[in-house]
């Protein structure tokens, strides 16, 4: 592991004062410490932010507000989260392992790095890790890679489950700097790789995620998170879908859909949502609407199955969320 300075901050201001080029904030450590051991990340300074007052889960002003330092397991088990937005809890409980959920923070979950094996192996080229060095995944082992939102520079997926639920629910992130707070929709917080896959989000160097804000949506209690993976637990998604649907008299009034495991960032499925609205809530409607989910998809040699799998995952998630079976 690369040598670094360690400093613990007790205030947001103190943490931001310590931050600079080459520094990294340490919360749960499940991404940062892991990638530091692999020399994928080599910060000169690690700023422990665990003592910062960025905790708390509360309902305020029509929104569920989750402090960035809340742990995945605490958020998943929180009665307000479970009753207002059960899909958040479901997505969290289908992520990682018990130990990792106990450690990992919500802010850190949103900042986690891709599981692309070429990114995690410093002996490989990787445009995300070493800009301009190339992307071996384009022609290499790419079964787990993305089919949507990719570029000729990078085909990595975004690994978070809960971010998929958040994006479906129009969540925003509060970004805090010395200049104050700014708020960004989570969907726009993430950048597509384009020709700069090393720039994954809009976070500035002197900024940190303070809070996630999820608007309350009463009918979104009818929701699910369906995750398809190679084993039953402790595995990343091949495909996943967060779905919430409002059905009245058998007709879809409103719907929220986002997908994971298939795209360069948590992927909102707006075209599918539009195709569903006003439709009869039956399997055929869902299957027809799901067709547009893969418009523009760019399958690779080993992951072409993801386009069909994504459509089926959408249909099953909608059936579950609509209580149609």
């Amino acid at each position, binding site marked *: 592991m690369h040598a670094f300075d*360690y400093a613990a901050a007790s205030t947001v201001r103190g943490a931001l004062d310590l931050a600079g080029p080459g520094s990294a904030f*340490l919360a749960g450590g*499940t991404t940062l410490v892991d990638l530091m051991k692999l020399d994928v990340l080599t910060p000169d300074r690690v700023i422990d932010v665990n003592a910062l007052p960025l905790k708390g889960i509360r309902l305020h002003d029509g929104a569920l507000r989750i402090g960035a330092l809340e742990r995945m397991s605490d958020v998943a088990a929180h009665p307000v989260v479970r009753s207002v937005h059960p899909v958040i809890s479901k997505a969290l409980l289908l992520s990682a*392992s018990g130990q990792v959920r106990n450690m990992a923070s919500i802010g850190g979950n949103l900042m986690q790095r891709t599981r692309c094996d070429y990114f995690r192996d410093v002996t490989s080229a990787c445009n995300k890790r070493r800009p301009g060095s190339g992307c071996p995944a384009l022609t290499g082992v790419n079964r787990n890679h993305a089919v949507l939102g990719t570029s000729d520079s990078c085909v990595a997926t975004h690994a978070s489950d809960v971010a998929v639920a958040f994006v479906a629910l129009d969540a925003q992130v509060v970004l805090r700097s010395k200049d104050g707070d700014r708020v960004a929709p989570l969907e726009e917080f993430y950048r597509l790789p384009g020709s700069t896959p090393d720039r994954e989000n809009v976070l500035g160097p002197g900024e940190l995620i303070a809070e996630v804000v999820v608007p309350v949506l009463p009918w979104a209690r009818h929701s699910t998170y369906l995750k398809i993976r190679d084993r039953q637990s402790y595995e990343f998604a091949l495909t996943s879908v967060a779905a919430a649907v409002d059905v009245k008299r058998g007709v879809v009034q409103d719907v929220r859909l986002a997908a994971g495991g298939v795209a360069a960032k948590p992927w909102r499925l707006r075209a599918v949502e539009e195709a569903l609205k006003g439709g009869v809530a039956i399997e055929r409607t869902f299957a027809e609407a799901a067709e547009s989910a893969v418009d523009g998809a760019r399958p690779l040699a080993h992951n072409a199955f993801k386009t069909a799998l994504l459509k089926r995952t959408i249909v099953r998630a909608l059936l579950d969320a609509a209580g149609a079976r």
Partner: protein
Amino acid sequence: MRVNVTVNGEQRQADDVWEGESLLFMLRERLGLPGSKNACEQGECGSCTVYLDNVPVCACLVAAGQAQDRSVRTVEGLAEGDQLDPVQEAFVEAGAVQCGFCTPGLVVQAHDLLDRVPNPSDPEIREALAGNLCRCTGYEKILDAVRLAASRR
């Protein structure tokens, strides 16, 4: 740096700790507690599971400095003197130990499960232990041990 930490109820101090050291390394190499095992070092195998402030974590991914002024309980801290914890006894009786390398992590994780869920279903046991890998693949006996420990509570 110097780290002050409560380990198994005792106030301990470790000096000359390197910033990049894990809590696991500090426990094993500086505080003489080799029960927690070092295997994957990536948080994937659970062999290093310890309680940190009463919550099980992978000690390999906790920076040693993060343990400052906190409380750690390792597998060595489960028994009361010579009296093994019921989870440990159940592992012995059920034959849930093959090479034994994964056992300390599994015992701590199962101990936490039974504290939170006294009568877990099989799916609950499987999910709770999903982050603990047994390379001998002795999972059936491990499940037996957890069921046995639960039945005695």
